[in-house]
Protein backbone atom coordinates (compact mmCIF):
# COMPACT_ATOMS: atom_id res chain seq x y z
CA UNK A 1 0.00 0.00 0.00
CA UNK A 2 1.10 3.53 -0.63
CA UNK A 3 0.46 6.02 2.18
CA UNK A 4 -2.93 7.72 2.59
CA UNK A 5 -1.53 11.18 1.77
CA UNK A 6 -0.36 9.97 -1.64
CA UNK A 7 -3.67 8.21 -2.27
CA UNK A 8 -5.71 11.29 -1.35
CA UNK A 9 -3.53 13.46 -3.64
CA UNK A 10 -4.08 11.12 -6.59
CA UNK A 11 -7.85 11.34 -6.08
CA UNK A 12 -7.79 15.15 -5.93
CA UNK A 13 -5.60 15.35 -9.03
CA UNK A 14 -7.90 12.94 -10.85
CA UNK A 15 -10.95 15.08 -10.08
CA UNK A 16 -9.12 18.29 -10.91
CA UNK A 17 -8.24 16.84 -14.31
CA UNK A 18 -11.57 15.16 -15.05
CA UNK A 19 -13.71 18.00 -13.71
CA UNK A 20 -16.35 15.73 -12.22
CA UNK A 21 -18.27 16.36 -9.02
CA UNK A 22 -18.39 14.12 -5.89
CA UNK A 23 -14.80 15.06 -5.09
CA UNK A 24 -15.07 14.20 -1.39
CA UNK A 25 -16.66 10.83 -2.17
CA UNK A 26 -13.81 9.89 -4.52
CA UNK A 27 -11.25 10.92 -1.88
CA UNK A 28 -13.15 8.84 0.68
CA UNK A 29 -13.20 5.94 -1.79
CA UNK A 30 -9.45 6.12 -2.32
CA UNK A 31 -8.84 5.96 1.46
CA UNK A 32 -11.36 3.22 2.30
CA UNK A 33 -9.33 0.13 1.18
CA UNK A 34 -6.52 0.84 3.66
CA UNK A 35 -8.87 1.95 6.44
CA UNK A 36 -11.07 -1.15 6.29
CA UNK A 37 -8.40 -3.69 5.35
CA UNK A 38 -4.85 -2.76 6.35
CA UNK A 39 -5.61 -0.88 9.57
CA UNK A 40 -7.60 -3.68 11.27
CA UNK A 41 -5.25 -6.41 9.96
CA UNK A 42 -2.10 -4.60 11.16
CA UNK A 43 -3.68 -3.67 14.49
CA UNK A 44 -4.79 -7.24 15.14
CA UNK A 45 -1.38 -8.58 14.08
CA UNK A 46 0.38 -6.39 16.64
CA UNK A 47 -2.25 -7.10 19.28
CA UNK A 48 -1.90 -10.83 18.68
CA UNK A 49 1.76 -10.77 19.73
CA UNK A 50 0.54 -9.90 23.25
CA UNK A 51 -2.81 -11.69 23.10
CA UNK A 52 -2.22 -14.99 21.26
CA UNK A 53 -5.84 -16.00 21.91
CA UNK A 54 -6.89 -13.75 19.00
CA UNK A 55 -7.63 -16.23 16.21
CA UNK A 56 -5.53 -16.03 13.06
CA UNK A 57 -8.57 -16.01 10.78
CA UNK A 58 -9.63 -12.71 12.34
CA UNK A 59 -6.42 -11.11 11.04
CA UNK A 60 -6.97 -12.44 7.49
CA UNK A 61 -10.70 -11.63 7.44
CA UNK A 62 -10.10 -8.06 6.20
CA UNK A 63 -7.77 -8.96 3.32
CA UNK A 64 -10.36 -9.15 0.51
CA UNK A 65 -11.46 -5.55 1.19
CA UNK A 66 -8.21 -4.59 -0.54
CA UNK A 67 -9.10 -6.71 -3.60
CA UNK A 68 -11.49 -5.88 -6.46
CA UNK A 69 -14.37 -8.16 -5.41
CA UNK A 70 -14.23 -6.92 -1.81
CA UNK A 71 -13.99 -3.32 -3.01
CA UNK A 72 -17.17 -3.74 -5.07
CA UNK A 73 -19.07 -5.20 -2.09
CA UNK A 74 -17.70 -2.53 0.26
CA UNK A 75 -18.60 0.35 -2.10
CA UNK A 76 -22.09 -1.11 -2.50
CA UNK A 77 -22.50 -1.37 1.29
CA UNK A 78 -21.23 2.16 1.95
CA UNK A 79 -23.38 3.66 -0.81
CA UNK A 80 -26.47 2.82 1.29
CA UNK A 81 -25.50 5.33 3.99
CA UNK A 82 -25.96 8.04 1.35
CA UNK A 83 -29.37 9.33 0.15
CA UNK A 84 -31.11 7.31 -2.54
CA UNK A 85 -30.89 10.19 -4.99
CA UNK A 86 -27.41 10.06 -6.46
CA UNK A 87 -26.52 6.74 -4.87
CA UNK A 88 -25.30 5.29 -8.16
CA UNK A 89 -22.89 8.22 -8.53
CA UNK A 90 -21.72 7.71 -4.94
CA UNK A 91 -21.14 4.00 -5.62
CA UNK A 92 -19.27 4.80 -8.85
CA UNK A 93 -17.02 7.30 -7.08
CA UNK A 94 -16.37 5.08 -4.05
CA UNK A 95 -15.49 2.21 -6.36
CA UNK A 96 -13.50 4.46 -8.70
CA UNK A 97 -11.52 5.70 -5.72
CA UNK A 98 -10.86 2.17 -4.54
CA UNK A 99 -9.68 1.10 -8.01
CA UNK A 100 -7.48 4.21 -8.25
CA UNK A 101 -5.99 3.16 -4.90
CA UNK A 102 -5.31 -0.31 -6.25
CA UNK A 103 -3.80 1.08 -9.46
CA UNK A 104 -1.28 3.13 -7.43
CA UNK A 105 -0.51 0.16 -5.16
CA UNK A 106 0.09 -2.07 -8.19
CA UNK A 107 3.06 0.13 -9.13
CA UNK A 108 4.93 -1.18 -6.06
CA UNK A 109 7.27 -4.10 -5.71
CA UNK A 110 7.10 -6.57 -2.81
CA UNK A 111 8.97 -9.76 -2.00
CA UNK A 112 6.60 -12.71 -2.31
CA UNK A 113 3.04 -12.44 -3.56
CA UNK A 114 1.62 -9.41 -5.32
CA UNK A 115 -2.02 -8.40 -5.34
CA UNK A 116 -4.70 -11.08 -5.80
CA UNK A 117 -6.76 -9.28 -8.43
CA UNK A 118 -9.08 -12.19 -9.27
CA UNK A 119 -9.76 -13.54 -5.78
CA UNK A 120 -11.82 -15.65 -4.97
CA UNK A 121 -11.92 -17.00 -8.54
CA UNK A 122 -8.16 -17.35 -8.87
CA UNK A 123 -5.07 -16.99 -6.70
CA UNK A 124 -3.12 -15.43 -9.56
CA UNK A 125 -1.21 -12.45 -8.22
CA UNK A 126 0.18 -9.42 -9.99
CA UNK A 127 1.98 -6.11 -9.51
CA UNK A 128 3.91 -3.90 -11.93
CA UNK A 129 6.80 -3.59 -9.48
CA UNK A 130 8.20 -0.35 -10.87
CA UNK A 131 8.65 1.43 -7.51
CA UNK A 132 9.71 0.27 -4.05
CA UNK A 133 7.09 -0.17 -1.35
CA UNK A 134 8.20 3.03 0.44
CA UNK A 135 9.08 5.18 -2.55
CA UNK A 136 5.90 7.25 -2.22
CA UNK A 137 7.40 8.69 1.00
CA UNK A 138 10.01 10.44 -1.15
CA UNK A 139 7.33 11.76 -3.50
CA UNK A 140 5.03 13.23 -0.82
CA UNK A 141 7.04 16.46 -0.19
CA UNK A 142 6.58 17.34 -3.87
CA UNK A 143 3.15 15.81 -4.41
CA UNK A 144 1.36 17.67 -1.59
CA UNK A 145 2.28 21.24 -2.67
CA UNK A 146 1.69 20.30 -6.32
CA UNK A 147 -1.76 18.93 -5.46
CA UNK A 148 -2.54 21.98 -3.31
CA UNK A 149 -1.60 24.28 -6.20
CA UNK A 150 -3.69 22.32 -8.69
CA UNK A 151 -6.68 22.28 -6.30
CA UNK A 152 -6.38 26.03 -5.70
CA UNK A 153 -6.19 26.65 -9.44
CA UNK A 154 -9.17 24.35 -10.07
CA UNK A 155 -11.49 25.18 -7.17
CA UNK A 156 -9.99 27.87 -4.98
CA UNK A 157 -9.63 30.87 -7.25
CA UNK A 158 -12.20 33.64 -6.92
CA UNK A 159 -14.43 33.63 -9.94
CA UNK A 160 -14.89 37.11 -11.48
CA UNK A 161 -18.32 38.47 -10.70
CA UNK A 162 -20.36 39.43 -13.70
CA UNK A 163 -19.98 43.17 -14.25
CA UNK A 164 -22.68 45.60 -15.27
CA UNK A 165 -23.94 45.13 -18.74
CA UNK A 166 -22.49 47.80 -20.98
CA UNK A 167 -24.65 49.93 -23.19
Amino acid at each position, binding site marked *: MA*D*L*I*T*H*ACTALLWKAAS*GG*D*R*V*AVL*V*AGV*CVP*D*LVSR*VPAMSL*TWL*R*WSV*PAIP*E*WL*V*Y*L*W*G*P*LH*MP*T*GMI*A*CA*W*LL*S*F*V*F*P*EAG*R*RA*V*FANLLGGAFLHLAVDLLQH*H*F*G*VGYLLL*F*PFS*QWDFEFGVIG*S*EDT*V*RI*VPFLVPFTAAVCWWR*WGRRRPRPGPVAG
Partner: protein
Amino acid sequence: MFSDEGRRLKMLVAVVIILALGLRYAWVAAHMQSGWRWCMEDPVARDGSSLVFPLWTVTAIDGPDRYRISKIIKDVPVEGDTSDLHEGATVSVVARFDAGRTLAVEQLRELHVLRKWKEGLGVLGFLCALAAAPFAFRWRSGRIEERSWRT
Protein backbone atom coordinates in the same frame (compact mmCIF):
# COMPACT_ATOMS: atom_id res chain seq x y z
CA MET B 1 -29.87 -2.48 -6.80
CA PHE B 2 -29.41 1.06 -5.44
CA SER B 3 -32.96 1.94 -4.40
CA ASP B 4 -34.13 2.29 -0.79
CA GLU B 5 -36.47 -0.66 -1.29
CA GLY B 6 -35.10 -3.47 0.90
CA ARG B 7 -32.17 -1.26 1.88
CA ARG B 8 -31.40 -3.11 5.10
CA LEU B 9 -31.58 -6.47 3.35
CA LYS B 10 -29.20 -5.26 0.64
CA MET B 11 -26.78 -4.00 3.29
CA LEU B 12 -26.99 -7.37 5.02
CA VAL B 13 -26.27 -9.13 1.71
CA ALA B 14 -23.20 -6.93 1.21
CA VAL B 15 -21.96 -7.74 4.73
CA VAL B 16 -22.50 -11.48 4.12
CA ILE B 17 -20.56 -11.28 0.83
CA ILE B 18 -17.69 -9.45 2.59
CA LEU B 19 -17.66 -12.00 5.42
CA ALA B 20 -17.71 -14.92 2.96
CA LEU B 21 -14.79 -13.43 1.03
CA GLY B 22 -12.89 -12.86 4.27
CA LEU B 23 -13.44 -16.38 5.57
CA ARG B 24 -12.47 -17.87 2.20
CA TYR B 25 -9.28 -15.79 2.21
CA ALA B 26 -8.50 -16.88 5.78
CA TRP B 27 -8.99 -20.52 4.77
CA VAL B 28 -6.69 -20.13 1.74
CA ALA B 29 -4.02 -18.43 3.90
CA ALA B 30 -4.21 -21.17 6.54
CA HIS B 31 -3.84 -23.95 3.96
CA MET B 32 -1.00 -22.57 1.85
CA GLN B 33 1.55 -25.16 0.79
CA SER B 34 4.42 -22.93 1.78
CA GLY B 35 5.61 -20.79 4.64
CA TRP B 36 7.12 -21.27 8.07
CA ARG B 37 4.15 -23.08 9.62
CA TRP B 38 3.89 -25.49 6.67
CA CYS B 39 7.59 -26.29 7.02
CA MET B 40 7.25 -26.86 10.77
CA GLU B 41 4.42 -29.37 10.25
CA ASP B 42 6.91 -31.82 8.70
CA PRO B 43 10.40 -30.32 9.08
CA VAL B 44 12.42 -33.23 7.69
CA ALA B 45 10.35 -33.53 4.51
CA ARG B 46 10.42 -29.77 3.94
CA ASP B 47 14.09 -29.18 4.66
CA GLY B 48 15.51 -26.69 2.15
CA SER B 49 12.14 -25.22 1.19
CA SER B 50 12.08 -21.59 0.15
CA LEU B 51 10.51 -19.11 2.57
CA VAL B 52 9.38 -15.55 1.89
CA PHE B 53 8.65 -13.07 4.68
CA PRO B 54 7.36 -9.82 3.16
CA LEU B 55 7.31 -6.81 5.50
CA TRP B 56 7.95 -8.60 8.80
CA THR B 57 9.03 -6.83 11.99
CA VAL B 58 12.33 -7.59 13.73
CA THR B 59 11.29 -8.48 17.29
CA ALA B 60 14.63 -9.64 18.72
CA ILE B 61 18.35 -9.56 17.95
CA ASP B 62 19.91 -12.73 19.36
CA GLY B 63 23.50 -12.17 18.24
CA PRO B 64 25.65 -10.97 15.33
CA ASP B 65 24.07 -13.54 12.98
CA ARG B 66 20.71 -14.37 14.56
CA TYR B 67 17.49 -12.43 14.80
CA ARG B 68 13.80 -13.10 15.12
CA ILE B 69 10.95 -11.69 13.02
CA SER B 70 7.24 -11.55 13.64
CA LYS B 71 4.05 -10.92 11.73
CA ILE B 72 1.21 -13.44 11.78
CA ILE B 73 3.61 -15.87 13.48
CA LYS B 74 5.68 -14.55 16.37
CA ASP B 75 9.45 -14.88 16.65
CA VAL B 76 10.54 -16.86 13.60
CA PRO B 77 14.32 -17.43 14.04
CA VAL B 78 16.47 -16.23 11.13
CA GLU B 79 20.18 -16.65 10.49
CA GLY B 80 21.68 -13.55 8.90
CA ASP B 81 23.87 -10.53 9.52
CA THR B 82 22.32 -8.26 12.15
CA SER B 83 24.78 -5.36 11.96
CA ASP B 84 22.25 -3.01 10.32
CA LEU B 85 19.16 -4.32 12.15
CA HIS B 86 17.41 -3.16 15.29
CA GLU B 87 14.26 -4.23 17.11
CA GLY B 88 11.22 -2.73 15.45
CA ALA B 89 12.83 -2.56 12.00
CA THR B 90 10.79 -3.81 9.05
CA VAL B 91 12.42 -6.34 6.72
CA SER B 92 11.47 -8.48 3.75
CA VAL B 93 13.40 -11.75 3.74
CA VAL B 94 13.82 -14.60 1.30
CA ALA B 95 15.22 -17.61 3.15
CA ARG B 96 15.77 -21.38 3.07
CA PHE B 97 14.29 -23.61 5.74
CA ASP B 98 16.92 -25.50 7.78
CA ALA B 99 15.17 -28.40 9.50
CA GLY B 100 18.23 -29.49 11.50
CA ARG B 101 18.57 -26.15 13.29
CA THR B 102 14.88 -25.19 12.97
CA LEU B 103 15.53 -21.77 11.52
CA ALA B 104 15.33 -19.77 8.32
CA VAL B 105 18.67 -19.15 6.63
CA GLU B 106 18.54 -15.73 5.04
CA GLN B 107 19.38 -15.58 1.33
CA LEU B 108 18.08 -12.13 0.40
CA ARG B 109 16.96 -9.25 2.60
CA GLU B 110 15.52 -5.80 2.07
CA LEU B 111 15.59 -3.42 5.03
CA HIS B 112 12.66 -1.01 4.80
CA VAL B 113 14.29 2.08 6.32
CA LEU B 114 11.41 4.39 5.35
CA ARG B 115 8.66 2.15 6.73
CA LYS B 116 8.14 4.23 9.89
CA TRP B 117 7.85 7.37 7.78
CA LYS B 118 5.29 5.65 5.61
CA GLU B 119 3.29 4.54 8.63
CA GLY B 120 3.55 8.08 10.01
CA LEU B 121 2.19 9.48 6.75
CA GLY B 122 -0.63 6.95 6.96
CA VAL B 123 -1.55 8.15 10.46
CA LEU B 124 -1.23 11.80 9.35
CA GLY B 125 -3.46 11.08 6.35
CA PHE B 126 -6.02 9.44 8.61
CA LEU B 127 -6.03 12.43 10.99
CA CYS B 128 -6.35 14.85 8.05
CA ALA B 129 -9.28 12.79 6.72
CA LEU B 130 -10.96 12.90 10.16
CA ALA B 131 -10.43 16.66 10.38
CA ALA B 132 -11.72 17.26 6.83
CA ALA B 133 -14.73 14.94 7.10
CA PRO B 134 -17.10 17.47 8.77
CA PHE B 135 -16.30 19.99 6.04
CA ALA B 136 -16.87 17.47 3.25
CA PHE B 137 -19.89 15.58 4.58
CA ARG B 138 -22.87 16.20 6.84
CA TRP B 139 -25.28 13.93 8.65
CA ARG B 140 -28.93 14.51 7.76
CA SER B 141 -31.99 12.31 8.35
CA GLY B 142 -29.90 9.25 9.13
CA ARG B 143 -27.83 9.54 5.94
CA ILE B 144 -24.50 11.04 4.98
CA GLU B 145 -24.65 13.86 2.45
CA GLU B 146 -21.75 15.38 0.62
CA ARG B 147 -21.49 19.12 1.10
CA SER B 148 -21.52 21.25 -2.02
CA TRP B 149 -18.17 21.48 -3.78
CA ARG B 150 -17.18 24.20 -6.21
CA THR B 151 -16.73 22.77 -9.67
